[in-house]
């Protein structure tokens, strides 16, 4: 994966209302996601973009801008681990949908970083619901591979995308099988062959453009996955498919694997825990949408946590571009179905950061972490709670979106100012 270093310039249209400075977020219930646990009436101090202190007795510098949480909650920003934010503006309008490339000649080599649009209007509406970091996923195209995913903040500026080449996405479920030719065996054979192509890169392409599965450019793009430098995210739901995925991982060290979907992951929870393979699931998925997901249940999250599987939550049953902002509701429902509050909250903050290998910077509140801090007017997993302040990289963001502008325009329908003149 590649860190993206770009200019510090922040334009007027971005989330940042001010350049990073010193902020003291005080007077709230601080959820640290660290050994410090929850600190009642605590303070988080941020300077020049990063957190510099967290605790109950933090001295507030004279130059700090104080943000009073007013007895609310102070938490790390939500990290949505499975989104298509910045790729889709209007899903059904192909001209605004950059998530997949059915007609491309390429697959593994595709990189969502080239498609990501930080100016998309769903980014501010996601940010104002407390989501500060997202993993951006490609859709699959002509074969089982969607290409490379990336990690972004919801700042909405030129620096939003902070890492690309973060993972490679492959679909080995029924839909992947369909793309591979019609059966699961076709999909796994394709993946096997693609790995051989990448393992044999560059040699087997010295005289040929084509490999067994992948052409030269895509094979090159798969090399970091084969070497275990970049994780492979495998979309599978059926228990048998998950077992097959575990076997594939075991047969291809040092491959790192992440399971996405995982409707029946709870049925193979012990094997997943033993294999150390993390799982991305939507905890509210409970209907058998297909014969791949007959075991879908609201108890899945709790069973996975209990077995010791590393679990992060998604909004897969809704969508990943408009509704990623509802992730806290999905997590709250897992608590209603047996998951501890701290496990559920970690599954949308710290654990996604761990899964993508960026947990030294994101997902917790401690000195040295990026200044992603959200102040809530209540329990962040409650459907009636909302952020009052969202800081990203140590800067306050504006809690406005195109949606709030529409709301404000139509709040008072008796006002005689013509609607188009109300701004």
């Amino acid at each position, binding site marked *: 994966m590649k860190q993206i270093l770009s200019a510090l310039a922040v334009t007027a249209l971005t989330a940042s209302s001010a350049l990073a400075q010193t902020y003291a977020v005080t007077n709230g219930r601080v959820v640290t996601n660290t050994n410090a646990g929850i600190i009642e009436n605590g303070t988080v101090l941020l300077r020049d973009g990063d957190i510099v202190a967290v605790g109950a007795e933090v001295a507030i510098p004279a130059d700090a801008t104080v943000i009073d949480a007013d007895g609310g909650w102070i938490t790390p920003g939500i990290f949505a681990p499975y989104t298509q934010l910045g790729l889709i503006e209007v899903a*059904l309008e192909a001209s605004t949908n950059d998530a997949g490339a059915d007609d491309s000649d390429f697959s593994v080599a595709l990189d969502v970083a080239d498609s990501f649009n930080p100016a998309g209007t769903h980014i501010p509406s996601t940010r104002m619901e407390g989501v500060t970091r997202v993993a951006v996923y490609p859709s699959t195209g002509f074969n089982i591979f969607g290409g490379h995913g990336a990690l972004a903040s919801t700042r909405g500026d030129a620096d939003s995308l902070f890492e690309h080449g973060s993972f490679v996405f492959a679909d080995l479920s029924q839909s992947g099988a369909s793309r591979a030719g019609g059966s699961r065996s076709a999909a796994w054979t394709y993946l096997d062959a693609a790995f051989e192509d990448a393992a044999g890169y560059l040699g087997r392409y010295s005289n040929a453009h084509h490999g067994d599965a992948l052409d030269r450019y895509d094979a090159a793009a798969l090399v970091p996955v084969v070497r275990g430098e970049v994780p492979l995210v495998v979309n599978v739901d059926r228990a048998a498919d998950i077992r097959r995925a575990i076997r594939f991982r075991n047969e291809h060290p040092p491959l790192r694997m992440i399971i996405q979907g995982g409707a029946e992951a709870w049925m193979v929870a012990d094997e997943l825990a033993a294999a150390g393979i993390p799982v991305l699931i939507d905890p509210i998925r409970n209907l058998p949408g297909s014969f791949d997901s007959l075991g879908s249940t609201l108890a899945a999250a709790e069973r996975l946590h209990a077995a010791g599987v590393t679990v992060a939550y998604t909004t897969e049953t809704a969508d990943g571009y408009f509704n990623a902002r509802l992730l806290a509701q999905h997590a709250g429902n897992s608590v209603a179905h047996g998951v501890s509050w701290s496990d559920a909250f970690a599954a949308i903050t710290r654990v996604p950061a761990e899964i993508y290998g960026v947990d030294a910077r994101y997902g917790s509140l401690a000195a040295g972490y990026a200044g992603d801090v959200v102040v809530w007017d209540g329990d962040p997993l*409650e459907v009636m709670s909302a952020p009052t302040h969202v800081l990203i990289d140590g800067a306050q963001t504006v809690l406005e979106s195109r949606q709030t502008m529409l709301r404000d325009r139509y709040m008072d329908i008796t006002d005689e100012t013509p609607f188009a003149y109300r701004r």
Partner: protein
Amino acid sequence: MTSNFLKASAGLAAVFCLAACSGGGTASSGSGETSSEDGGEVVRINLDPYPSTYEPMASGTTLIQNATIFDGLGGQIDDGDVLIENGLISAVGVDLEVPEGATVIDAVGRYVTPGVIDIHSHLGVYPSPGVGAHSDGNEATQPVTAEVWAEHSVWPQDPGFEAALAGGVTTLHVLPGSANLFGGRGVTLRNVSGRTVQEMKFPDAPYTLKMACGENPSRVYGNRGTSPATDMGNMAGYRAAWQRASDYRDDWHEYWDAAEAGEDASPPRRDLELDTMMGVLEGEVLVQMHCYRADQMAQIMDLAREFDYQVTTFHHAVEAYKIPDLLAENGACVAVWADWGGFKMEAYDSIRENLALSHANGACAMIHSDDSGGIQRLNQEIAKALADGRRAGIEISEAEAWTWVANNPATALGIADQTGSLQPGLRGDVVLWSGNPYSVYTRADQVWIDGAMAFNRADESTQPVRDFMLGQPGEGDQ
């Protein structure tokens, strides 16, 4: 049925059996399409050829005590009691007497509401699993299919029904999809398990007609190079169809008038498509119309005026907040999501305050799911809508917001005198929640339908499992 429906129904009966009933014949719900009277045959239309065979499950007397009660009409009773007897709500109040033999439930700290009503569901017609063989929601073969009935597509073994029950849903309205200008009839169901859809049909609930605005019909047919391919094509399609329906109705009136006068008259040729549309023109069949944009809803309200019918509810209506005044003037309700949108251009202006803002500005508004997941959590959906409304400065009480899943959808379905609120004499459709239903952590503990406990979270023997799930992974899991 509501008083509105009774009026409409009586009106229709008068129309349909003007001749047949004139000599003291029976009401129009006879079993055949023709009847003999005084030696002459008068053709009439059987309005109920697929009657409900629903029978409530066995019930006893249940008294729920010491709960916080939202009555579904906007009222709240603290530390209150609800008595269910003989399948009906028999009393709601404080410190009710305990009838002999009653099952008494102490609900301290818990909430009681009328059962949740979802006015927009595709359970059964787009069931789980979503296999090709069960894709039965859209007769997308021509743009006007008012002759198809959703109940003829409902698969009663959809496991989505029991998942919705665990979320407190006691009544749901299942619609055809929105590919067509006239999609066909919807059906209102009790959320009970039945071997047949007839065993689930809400007795005597009015029929509905699904219509659709906007992108879906013009995309489906435009992509085939046929009409409608545009919004103006949609409008032309509705107008041409309503004109045919209007002529059809006139033909029947002419026939019945003649028959009434003892003249020798031939009945019009029966047309199943126009039967449904004539039902709308006569005020018996309620129009439930998929429409997103404000300007399109305004066009449709003009259309309804042109052909003299009523749009009962606009569904989805993501831009209702832009025209609450027009909606109120026209008496059209809106059924909306809390916060979904963005998936197509006509959903682009979705805002989180749509429900609260439309409600506060005078429109008759309610929540809907249109989704097998969303229907399980309509309490959370209205919680979000309420919270977002309050943050925008709109004062709405928790009890008032409960009308969005209760009396308002019941009214829009023409069944508000049967369910949707906790009033003596109404059906015993009741949910006991583990806490405040506006909390994400709250679940339905027990659900009664017609006074019978249909779901009990604490007792697996009172948790239905559809045939399809038997022997499958996860059988019996929520």
